[in-house]
């Protein structure tokens, strides 16, 4: 008999991944509320403690729907030294980066980052602080990790300044936006962000969620968290249709975008519908010189988590055939509860070349990381 007793199990991934992978959606957390203070002027410390942050959405604090797990995160991802899930680099390395052989991890900071905030000065200060914090706490300490330039999205002129300030800094691989803003993402008010991103050569990631004040569905606030979970795909479709139809990719032809955590199974049907209607209403949007689907195919990449999971694998392969194996970017969403385990996401029957593209090479290409 050989029995070892422990109060808690040793934290570790359940599988060992031999192949190097990119994880294109990792959420780094703050261990304490004041962790950004070193990069915020004293004025903002007092402001945050007195007034807090105000988003465009009605909920003063926190998300509109309670999450299914604490902090919407894996219950086994609490760092041993304390703090919420995702707030410790050493634990992230031990639980996720090392055992899963992550060689490129893209950080997408969420929470009070300046996005969707009504106080635009505070929003800009927080976004810039988050960007400095990503280098100090994460990317300078672990070269596998790359940051996202977080911007105060509702003030696009200031956001563009923040993007240009980070131009050429290898710590960042994309500009980060969220899907639900005050207006659909293709609208003119956001163009300075795209102009700056194109100029500095960074793709723009559009992650699910956002605090623009619009409900998660196009027809009001639903009752359940499960409706929020599936609602992200419709918000993302609105954002993508707006980007295409406003002519963002005509105006910024070198701009690439990554749709993050909103699914991809809907992409073909959205593109078909856009093309079908475009044939009849072309004169309404004469600034478009190509079919809507062509902009989507050429300018859009997709992260995989939460992975589409149809009953029959050939349906998955058919969707990917339209999208292209060269356009999918593997992501886990660590440490969030709907995390995808790298070894379990793809069914059997994928060629080695496609696996290599899916798990790593596409990410290296779109993010410009060798």
């Amino acid at each position, binding site marked *: *008999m050989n*029995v070892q*007793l422990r109060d808690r*199990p040793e934290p570790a991934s359940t599988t060992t991944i031999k192949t190097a992978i990119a994880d294109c959606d990792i959420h780094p957390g703050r261990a304490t509320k004041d962790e950004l203070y070193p990069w915020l002027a004293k004025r903002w410390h007092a402001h945050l403690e007195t007034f807090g942050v105000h988003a465009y959405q009605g909920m003063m604090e926190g998300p509109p729907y309670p999450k299914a797990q604490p902090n919407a995160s894996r*219950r*086994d991802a609490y760092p041993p030294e304390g703090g919420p899930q995702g707030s410790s680099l050493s634990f992230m390395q031990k639980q996720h980066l090392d055992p899963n052989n992550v060689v490129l991890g893209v950080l997408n900071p969420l929470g009070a980052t300046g996005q969707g905030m009504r106080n635009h000065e505070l929003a800009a200060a927080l976004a810039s602080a988050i960007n400095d914090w990503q280098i100090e706490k994460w990317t300078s300490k672990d070269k596998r990790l790359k940051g996202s330039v977080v911007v105060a999205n509702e003030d696009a002129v200031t956001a563009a300044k923040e993007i240009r300030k980070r131009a050429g800094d290898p710590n960042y691989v994309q500009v980060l936006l969220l899907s639900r803003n005050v207006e659909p993402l293709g609208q003119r008010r956001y163009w300075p962000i795209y102009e700056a991103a194109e100029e500095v050569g960074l793709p723009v990631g559009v992650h699910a969620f956002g605090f623009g004040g619009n409900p998660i569905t196009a027809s009001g606030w639903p009752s359940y968290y499960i409706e929020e979970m599936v609602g992200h795909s419709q918000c993302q479709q609105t954002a993508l249709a707006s980007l295409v139809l406003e002519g963002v990719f005509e105006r910024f032809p070198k701009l690439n975008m990554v749709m993050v955590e909103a699914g991809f199974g809907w992409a073909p049907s959205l593109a078909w519908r856009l093309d079908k209607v475009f044939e009849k209403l072309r004169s309404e949007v004469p600034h478009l010189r190509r079919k809507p689907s062509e902009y989507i195919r050429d300018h859009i990449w997709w992260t995989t988590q939460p992975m589409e999971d149809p009953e029959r694998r050939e349906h998955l392969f058919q969707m990917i055939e339209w999208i292209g194996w060269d356009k999918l970017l593997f992501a886990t969403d660590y440490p969030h509860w709907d995390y995808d*385990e790298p*070894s379990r996401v793809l069914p059997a029957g994928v060629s080695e070349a496609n696996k290599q593209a899916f798990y790593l090479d596409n990410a290296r290409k779109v993010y410009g990381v060798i």
Partner: protein
Amino acid sequence: MARHVVAAVDELPPGTRKFLEIDGRSIAVFNIKGEYFGLLNRCPHQGAALCEGPLIGLAQSSTPGEIEYTKLGEIIRCPWHGWEFDIRTGQSYCDPRRFRARAYPASVEPGTAVVKGPYIAETIAVSVESDYVVVDL
């Protein structure tokens, strides 16, 4: 199958659980209101440490508007994706889609409208001998 003494009874009071490794297998033993249960600490869905999850009840409805909440404290909820397993049988619940697709018999148990899921968590026999908690593995 070998017997392993895992704890003195005093070490495992009601409401507690103990994590163990036996011959390389990670398991946990639970004391739920004086009854002992053993479970492999690995979720059959994507491999998470299942036994770190909270113990909840089973919410089910036989007809719209009526909810029964039973098996209080006997359903373990996976710390990742929230899959629910009956700690007595290891049976998963809540995947009617796969349930239809796979070879699980389409029987509905008396008094329940919840569909059994595709996964069975591995349960481990636990007993008490001379004030020690013992598992068969």
